[in-house]
């Protein structure tokens, strides 16, 4: 056992206790359930696994496409940074290849960033744009019925507005269901609505905090219309044995498909896994730009000498 500094140990224990206390402030699960229903925050519903027939019926109407993106930046001092981005749309089929859209960025070539944060923000938006582009291309290429996007739909609306508009109108025109699958829920819709009934410590608790362990496997909470961002519907779902729920976004115009989408996502999610549809995990693995690839590209195209130039000192730590 490592010899820890006594004061550090004490301080740590204190913080840990406070953290535990916060969860204890949460009302019992049954109470929470009732509160959510009574306040009209949403309705609980059960999802069902689709059988072969149901799945074939979906396939008849069109393919299922997953979209995901990946970013990797070289380690270095701003502005000596190169960022590689890749978005992929992949139909659920062995015969068709995926659509990949890539981009490489650097503050050096773009020149108008005053700070690193500004650049990071741009990178984020750019990736959202690439993903939407991939989704648009997928509509032309595969004529899908459902597009599963990795992340909230609201994010695309905020980060890549014009492209998002294009995707949305295309999807509505062609009746293609857009589904945002949110792994890390960051909203706090429930605590906002229950503010008066909750202890102060958890007034701003995230939705995942409130719902942790509350939903049964295969159960979802459909957030009432109007409570979520304008133009969207959302629901939380425990799609696997993992007690932490995932979030699913839909276009408001397509809310009639909510039940169908919930069942589909539930069907495609391994019950022992972390709760994300397997298809998105498969795409995630295909699209990811690993550090190795990044290093390889750098040393090939930048040259070892320049790699040395941009390498920060902290990278050279021996221990």
């Amino acid at each position: 056992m490592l010899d820890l500094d006594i004061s550090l140990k004490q301080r740590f224990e204190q913080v840990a206790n406070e953290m535990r206390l916060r969860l204890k402030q949460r009302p019992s699960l049954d109470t929470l359930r009732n509160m959510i229903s009574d306040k009209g925050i949403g309705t609980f519903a059960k999802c069902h696994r689709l059988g072969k027939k149901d799945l074939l019926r979906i396939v008849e109407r069109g393919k299922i496409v997953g979209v995901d993106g990946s970013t990797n930046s070289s380690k270095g001092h701003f502005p000596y940074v190169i960022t590689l981005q890749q978005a992929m749309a992949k139909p659920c089929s062995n015969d068709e290849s995926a659509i990949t859209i890539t981009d490489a960025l650097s503050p050096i070539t773009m020149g108008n960033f005053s700070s690193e944060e500004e650049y990071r923000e741009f990178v984020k938006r750019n990736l959202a744009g690439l993903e939407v582009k991939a989704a648009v291309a997928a509509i032309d290429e595969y004529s899908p019925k459902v597009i599963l996007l990795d992340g909230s739909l609201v994010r695309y609306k905020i980060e890549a507005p014009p492209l998002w508009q294009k995707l949305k109108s295309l999807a509505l025109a062609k009746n293609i269901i857009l589904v945002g699958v949110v792994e890390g829920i960051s909203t706090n819709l429930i605590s906002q609505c229950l503010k008066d009934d909750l202890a102060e410590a958890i007034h701003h608790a995230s939705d995942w905090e409130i719902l942790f362990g509350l939903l049964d496997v295969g159960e979802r909470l459909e957030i009432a219309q109007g409570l979520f961002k304008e133009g969207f519907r959302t629901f939380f779902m425990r799609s696997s044995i993992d007690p932490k729920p995932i979030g699913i976004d839909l276009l408001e115009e397509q809310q009639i498909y909510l039940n169908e989408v919930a069942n589909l996502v539930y069907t495609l999610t391994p019950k022992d896994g972390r709760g994300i549809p397997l298809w998105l995990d498969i795409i995630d693995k295909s699209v990811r730009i690993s550090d190795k690839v990044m290093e390889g590209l750098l040393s090939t195209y930048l040259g070892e000498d320049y790699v040395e130039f941009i390498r920060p000192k902290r990278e050279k730590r021996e221990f």
Partner: protein
Amino acid sequence: MQVVGLTTPHEVYVASKERKFRINELVVIEDPYQGNLIGEVVESNSYNRFIPLSIGSGLHDADVIESLKHLGYSISEDEINIAKVKLLTEANFPIVTGCPVRLPAFDEVRGYLLKGKREDALLLGEIKNTEETAATMEDDLKGLCDMYSRGKLYKTQNVPFFLDLRSFQQYPHIGVFGGSGSGKSFGLRVIMEEIMKHRFPAIMLDPHYEMEFSESQENISETQDFSQYFKKFQIGEHIGVEFKHLSRKDLLALLSAVSPLTDAMSSAVEELHLHGDTYLSFSDRLELLSEALEKGRGKIEQALKQDLEPMEKDKYKKMKELLEKYQNIPLPSVQGITWRLRRLHNSGLFSHDIKPVKEAMMQGKLVVVQGPIWLLQVFSTYLLSNIYRQRREYKDGELQGQTAQEYFPPFIIATDEAHNFAPKGRDAATKGIITEIAQEGRKYGVFLVLATQRPTLLDETVTAQLNTKIIFRTVRASDIATISEETDIKVEEARRLPYLPSGDAFVSSPLFGRTVAIRVRYPYTRSPHTQNPLDEIQIHRVKSEDKLLEAIKPHLPIYAANFARAVEEINKTSGQQYEVRTLKDALETLVEKGKLKKQSSPLGDIYLESGI
């Protein structure tokens, strides 16, 4: 397909998404700096990055995988195939990672797959996993033989495997190793068929009475009639040893093959056997000496003093002479030699000679010598020494410019259970001659084909001389160790030995410079006892029942009153020895089989024809 990962000048990894690799496949690596390099797949793996080998991973949810399949995506198709490839000849530098790899066209690898001319070669079977390459082969090499696998007979799709007969001059001896059921006997049969095709004289020692080449296999596309190409002899029945021509050494070997000789016996034989002895003169001498030793000098001298018939007198005189001449030989030795000699005589060994063997060999035939293993050892010692000597004398004479020697052709000696003929660590009559041929037979064009299921029990000097080794499935660890030691077989291949399907083999030959994985072709002919013992019993039973039915039919119906008479008549016509009780049992069996009908009546059972 492309080279991936860390490379060396002699080994690389190749990955492919579309194609699974098969062990022993040849591939061409297109190195941009070193040109095209040929490699062989020694290990094949498949990996699916979405189905990792870890416990607790959610990806094994079969329902989800099934659902994805219905949606049109099969996760199992998203796999990566990786092969470990060994270069056939080492490169100068490590291979460039990422360079493309493809399957070779036949001409690119011809030198590695085919050796020598097709007309001069033994067609043993096919080289495994060469279909794609075989497709680019010239037409007259395609589909040369029938293959048999998983109950199906088909024309080969692979590159044929030839063993060049001409190369025997360089690499004269073949070992065939494999456990029972490994396809070794089939392999040996194929080799012998091919040797017959070339009309190369050969001798096959056949302790199992299975080397018969006149019955064709069923359903094969092309039959071959070998009945004129081989001749079968049974020791004592057709061939034997001419006693008069036996050297003292041969005689000692023969006697000791019956049962080992003591030193006293050996020296007794050396004293007693005279040049030009026939079986009769030698055995008479032994018996007379034995009688003389039993009687003793005193009795014999006494008898000689009495008035005897001239013939009797003669006998006693001879006994006295023998006794004087061989006074040091003890009686038990003489008796020991006598019974050994008698046993040889009773086997018929001395009633024939080996002329028919030599004649058949001169005609380029395969001579199959059959006999129980002890006799086969005895006889083959004599036979092999004799013909090997004849061949050697001819060849030596030729070298010395003497053409007067009678011609005797080069030949091949083949045997199964070779570890009985040249065992390790103990003596056997044949061991001397086999070792001699193994060591210097090449010079005289005398070649060995030795098959055994226990290479570990085979004499090491002999094993070391077997240049070409054909290795079938082997399970025993000690045998695998011997094989690994004696051949250039790779570790990966040695590990596969216990799992080889019947009929698959590795050929390790200096001619190829590497181990070639082959599948032996389906023989044209079949062994006489391939009938399953169970079938044999069933067939025999049905036959004897039918025979009985025929015999009793005229006497039906049979009932208590005429039973005794029926038995008598049936015995007369069928030649069987039924009693009332046994016939009744037999009739009951027929009733059970539905071939007869039984009716009860106040007078007892009545047996009727089943049709009535």
